[in-house]
């Protein structure tokens, strides 16, 4: 039987929105299998994506800059 998925498992089905490579996770704070604070790092395009309050900000970097600047 398939085991119950945790929120950490869900974070595995992801890729860098900018270059589509795999992301690595640096966990800073977690609670009950959920990553609350951390950074997702793309080794290929060197972009970083923050996880804050349990929400990963995976807007593509160029566009994110477009909106914020």
């Amino acid at each position, binding site marked *: 039987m398939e085991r119950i*998925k945790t929120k950490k498992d869900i974070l595995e089905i992801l*890729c860098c*929105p900018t270059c589509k490579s795999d992301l690595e996770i640096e966990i800073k704070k977690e609670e009950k299998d959920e990553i609350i604070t951390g950074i997702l790092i793309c080794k290929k395009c060197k972009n970083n994506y923050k996880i804050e309050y349990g*929400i990963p900000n995976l807007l593509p970097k*160029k566009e994110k800059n477009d*909106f914020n600047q």
Partner: protein
Amino acid sequence: MIMEEKNIKKIVKESYSEIARKKGCCCCGNFDEEEIAKSIGYSKEEINIASEANLGLGCGNPVALANLKKGAIVLDLGSGAGFDSFIAAKKVGDTGKIIGVDMTEDMINKAKELANKYGYKNVEFRLGDIENLPVESESIDIVISNCVINLAPDKLKVFKEAYRVLKPDGKMYVSDIVLLEELTQEQRKNDELIAGCVGGALLKEEYLKIIQNAGFSYNILYEDKEISKRRQYQGFNLESLKVELYK
């Protein structure tokens, strides 16, 4: 990104941020959210699952069309406050998962807040752009999307991305507004019409062509012309198209 596309995203983001913050639909006139949900195919039970997440912004019920199985991995494009994601979460159970992607921060925050409040363990919301999905290739069983793709400036890119992330036997269920008659240039540029799911909508034939160009085959499941009676759509020759896409 060209200037015009950037502006469309800005208009959409601002408009939906406002909706998320004030809870409620900007443009539905006399109907309340529950009436809207009923009119587009949600059962009373489904509405009750996530009434706080129901902002009356859909134009169909893609979860019902998708016939979700326990354990399925589902991606919700433009998940908003999470209404469809939460209904889907109940259907796929603890062994399944739902990933909601939305570019509007206030919507994602609201969805996340509701997920915490009601203890959804199998739902994750990501701030992201449906034209550039932060989702691994061939990882998703079912993609759903409800009245969102019309808002995206580059619809071909959205469908190509959905195609990329779907498993080879995966399927996509879309409910979206399509036009049956072309708009004027002025209407195309009208901010309110863009945010209201009209200004960015394509002609039905054009929309289906784009789906094919992205690599999908499709079945039209249902075409709801009654939706044009809703206040925000009055005066426009359009319909809500429900379509099943497969690789």
